[in-house]
């Protein structure tokens, strides 16, 4: 029992590491390259992945047969999912799970970059605006100065226009992935139903 548990964990880890390299190849100009070490160093890759995702310290209880969804990530606002690997996972299910995990990582990367660059540029804009006016970042009471909505609107417009290309590429990719995942989920659901019906037919004692 413990050996199969260990084997399952090990295989999961290996599969996750394989994800890492695939994501590196897949992700193009959209996202910043991940700081992965060589492929032969799974532990450091795991640690870096943990640092990037920040939420992988949780492990679902062993008796659970469902996926688990976590709190929204601080940087990307997306909720991570821990996928359950069933004992007899078919190649189709494995493919679905890997695709979902990869899409999750890709999404997380994109939105983390997006949110970070937004807040950085916003701070920079506020700073430069205040500097033009000759004001300091903080007022006499030590509170942070804020610009009016009209002034900020300039920044929002500029930011949106600057990222237009990036967003339209992301959109296309996201729609394709979403459709593929849903289609695969449909196939897996059909496969599971078929399996259940098939077993029932084989063993009428179960009824």
């Amino acid at each position, binding site marked *: 029992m413990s050996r199969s548990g260990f084997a399952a964990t090990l295989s999961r880890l290996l599969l996750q590491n394989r994800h890492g390299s695939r994501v590196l190849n897949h992700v193009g100009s959209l996202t910043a390259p991940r700081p992965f070490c060589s492929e032969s160093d799974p532990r450091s890759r795991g640690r870096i992945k943990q640092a990037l995702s920040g*939420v992988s*310290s*949780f492990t*679902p209880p062993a008796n*659970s047969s*469902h*996926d*688990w*969804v*976590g*709190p*929204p990530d*601080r940087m*990307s*606002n*997306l*909720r991570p*999912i*821990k996928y359950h690997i069933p004992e007899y996972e078919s190649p189709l299910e494995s493919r679905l799970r890997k695709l979902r995990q990869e899409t999750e990582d890709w*999404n997380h990367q994109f*939105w983390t970059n*997006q*949110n970070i660059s*937004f807040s950085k540029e916003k701070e920079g804009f506020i700073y430069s605006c205040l500097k033009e006016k000759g004001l300091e970042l903080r007022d006499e009471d030590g509170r942070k100065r804020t610009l009016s*909505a*009209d002034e*900020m*609107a300039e*920044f*929002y*417009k500029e*930011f*949106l*226009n600057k*990222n*237009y290309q990036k*967003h*339209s590429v*992301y*959109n296309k990719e*996201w*729609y394709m992935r*979403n459709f593929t*995942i*849903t289609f695969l*989920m*449909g196939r897996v*659901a059909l496969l599971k139903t078929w399996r259940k019906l098939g077993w029932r037919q084989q063993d009428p004692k179960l009824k």
Partner: protein
Amino acid sequence: MGGSIILLLGTAPGGQVRQLYIFVKWTNIHLRNDPELNLLSPCSIQTMSQRVKIKNHPVNPMQNHGEKNCTSYHTVLWYVTKTTEGCQRAKPKQEALTAPLVDRHPHLQDETVIRQVQQISAIDQHPSSVQSSKETLTQDTEGASSEEDPSTAQETRQWKEIKVMLGDLPGIYARLSKIRLTALVVMTASAGYAMAPVPFDPSCFLLASLGTGLASCAANSINQYFEVPFDSNMNRTKNRPLVRGQISPLHAVSFAAACAVPGITLLALTVNPLTGALGALNLFLYTCCYTPLKRLSITNTWVGAVVGAIPPVMGWTAATGSLDVGALLLGGILYSWQFPHFNALSWNLREDYSRGGYRMMSVTHPALCRRVALRHSLALIGLSALAPALDVTSWTFPLISLPINLYISYLGYSFYRDADRSSARKLFFCSLWHLPMLLLLMLTCKKSRVDEEDKSMAHS
């Protein structure tokens, strides 16, 4: 949010904490009063009690209200509130109350100890989920006493199993189909039906409303299915079921299909094919044109206005079977109404739209945004005046609708002039009651068929 968790700890005379009673009281009063929350709680005021046994712990030195030998109950009220991160955290509200629970649980008249359990976070609004968090709560109290890494303990508690409970489904479906918006759409379709100059057929009316409602549910579900990562990043939409992982994308698509197919078929077969075609067109426009366009071009607002204008036209064609001028007028009124409604809403969401990559007029062309809102609120006056000219209503309609039309135009003008948060909010909230009021007035001024028959009889 309106959830409150009352923690009550009972102790034996030895001073050891024996049992942890959790009284969970859910109210949705706060939810109802906050229109900006995109939630609909199906729970009425419920009380649940659960007994959770924990190991014997030495009692910690108590906080302020610690009086060991008192017989009254001290309760610590925890209010579940929203934080900016989106996960719910409980904030302790320190109050000493003599709880009415004394009567119900006389055996707890021993010493009471208030134990400030660190954080009850991420407890869902639905009481059924308290079942699943029961176990984590036991872990939590043990963890809190040993003062181990509280952040990982807290994080562990926030992970939820993706297992759909049947009891949760109605609430999830309500949020998935944006039930309040769907109700508004069905209302406009019903108004379209009622305004048509034909005898009122209750069964046809009900079928048309049902079909429109189902089509709207399907459209909204598909919209949420497409927009999961974007919704996660916007404050207004981050509590949607797909974002929270309560159901899978496949489940959402199946639900949409289960609504769309019967809805459109119902319209096409039991009402008439024209209405069915309009319903299918609207579904297509919303899911395949408006939703992707939101991220590509500002023309999405105009497409969205057409999407909003079609339901009353559907209602009219359901009654008459043909696209009359009256149907187009009703559609025109709804079309014009969309602009002050949406432009005002989008004005205060500019930061979220910019970060999420939504291309809206309010961000890219702010002056145009305000101009269009004003233009169309003035157009409402003109369209109301056109109604009697097209024999849809009597001449009283433009007169009695003038006050509300003037009011929304005035708010549109102050939005145009001031361009600030408060004028945008005022315009948006006005648009919410303006539309039902206008439709109601229109109904009361509907051109009576009896008058027309009398006229024609008098002539002959």
